[in-house]
């Protein structure tokens, strides 16, 4: 066998097993998801009716879909604001402020990030428990009378109540990304700014933000993508979309349609819709956040 053939064989033997499995478990299901979305199908093979764009038309006139989209974007919006503000503040505090114990805080703040979404949901369900929970206990103490607000059971609060756990569990990850970005800024820039008498806030807006903008962008896009996909888990354990669809999100609605009500075609159409939404949202975000990249000379 020639060396060249040997080399090709080696390359193939290292690439193909992964590619075959990847095609089977990722590429093929993508195509199949699109295929299924054109059918009216309960999941059992006998009655799979081709209905073209029927499922998508049904989505168009399904009020729950609109509710779910609104809720998804509500969560995304407040998660981006909450996570980015807090993570940015702590990242700056732990790098530029030269606080003592910075590495301790970094380790501790990441703690919630290693927890499973189910653990987070169970913890916060208990915090929100109307009669036994921590939150009402604290409120009772403050107002000096019994508070029994059903945070997750009352549609006025339930969607808002999903935000603290989501933000709480997200801070550490993005703080670490931003810390790494800030640390890669040359110290000389800050030194000359200080010689010029620039205060901390000015350094933040004129040096830090422009130079970590790329990382901020990546972080926001990541929050958006993981949120469109990840709200499913937290809704599934905390509220199951209730009360009365007040916390319904597209991901959980997909699950409910497919695996509780056996409308597999409709569920698959929602999945395709989530893909389209996430691509469009990412593209729009990239444009909105376009800002001349600052080159460090």
């Amino acid at each position, binding site marked *: 066998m020639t060396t060249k053939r*040997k*080399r*090709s064989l*080696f*390359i193939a033997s290292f*690439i193909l097993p992964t*590619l075959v*499995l*990847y095609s089977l*478990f*990722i590429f*093929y*299901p*993508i195509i*199949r*998801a699109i295929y*299924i979305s054109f059918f009216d199908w309960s*999941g059992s093979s006998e009655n799979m009716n081709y209905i073209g764009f029927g499922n998508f038309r049904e989505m168009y006139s399904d009020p729950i879909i609109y509710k779910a989209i609104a809720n998804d974007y509500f969560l995304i919006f407040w998660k981006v604001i909450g996570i980015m503000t*807090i993570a940015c*503040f*702590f990242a700056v*505090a732990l790098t530029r*402020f030269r606080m003592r*114990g910075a590495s301790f*805080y970094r*380790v501790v*703040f*990441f*703690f*919630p990030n*290693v*927890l*499973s979404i*189910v*653990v987070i949901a*169970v*913890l916060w369900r*208990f915090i929100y428990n109307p009669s*036994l929970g921590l939150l009402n*206990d604290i409120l009772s103490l403050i107002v000096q009378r019994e508070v029994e607000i059903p945070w997750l059971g009352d549609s006025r609060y339930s969607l808002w109540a999903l935000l603290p756990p989501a933000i709480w569990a997200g*801070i550490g*990850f993005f703080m*670490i*990304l931003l810390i790494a970005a800030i640390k890669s800024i040359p110290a000389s820039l800050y030194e000359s700014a*200080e010689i010029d008498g620039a*205060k901390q806030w000015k*350094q933040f807006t004129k040096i830090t933000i422009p130079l970590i903008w790329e*990382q901020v962008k990546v972080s926001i896009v*990541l929050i958006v*993508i993981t949120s469109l*996909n990840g709200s499913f*888990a937290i809704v*599934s354990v905390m509220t199951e979309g209730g009360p009365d669809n007040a916390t319904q999100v597209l991901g959980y609605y*997909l699950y409910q349609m497919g*695996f509780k009500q056996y409308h*597999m075609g409709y*569920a698959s159409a929602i*999945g395709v819709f*989530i*893909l389209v939404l996430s691509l469009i949202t990412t593209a729009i975000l990239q444009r909105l956040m376009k800002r001349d990249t600052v080159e460090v000379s």
Partner: protein
Amino acid sequence: MKINTNSPITRLLTTLMLLVWTVFSVYPLIFSLFDSLKDNQQFYTKSAWALPDIPLLWSNFSYTWDKYNFGSYFLNTILVTGGSMVLALLLTATTAYVLARFAFKGKGLLYYLYLSSLTIPSLMLVVPMFFLFSDLHVYNKLSGIILLYSITAMPMGMFILIGFFKSLPHELEESAVIDGASPYSVFFKIMFPLALPGLITISIINVLNFWNEYQYALILLSDATKYTLPIGLAFMQGEMQYRIEFGPLFAGLLISTIPIIIIYILFQRQINDGIVAGAVK
């Protein structure tokens, strides 16, 4: 040189916020520990943050382990996490190595294919995955879950590892080839050990993700004897509608969480590096 331009008030406020967030980050786990040692009585008569009564109810842990099957969930999770970790390492390292150090036709396409697949929301795949698992006769089987987990972790690990393999010196490889070593032994005997820090980093990140995975396990495991810890815990939470046993619930929460916290404490540096390396791509 005067470095600090902060006023004492800013520093004080910042310290205060850092301390508050420290409490926020750790306290839920501390009250879980307290609450896992209580009986129902204590939940109803005292406030949620009260310390548990003596004697501490350690039996909640064995109760959850036996009666709520957390022993079996725990074992399943270890199997799934361990198996997926090893398989993911093989699938990822081979592809990353070839993409990093060999030129061949279709290389750019392959790289782009994996990269773009990262933008696919995995929720879109749950319906077809359910049927794929039935077709392959791996529905309700841990082996199917192991295959799926290791393949889903592939692209992200690959991007981190490509950077790693690229940074290794070429001389070692070349001299080994001159000595007549096959490309396989170059990979397994020379490159693999050299890339160990990178391999450990991606494996730790993978272990965290596999241990906690919920979405696919929920769809693909319906037999309670096959549940992993997240599914088992979610199931137990659901049971609380019918019988309230908060002490055991928190014991179950801790059983699911303690191994991952130990791993985090031992490997927090690698986790940190992995996150940064993964997000730069």
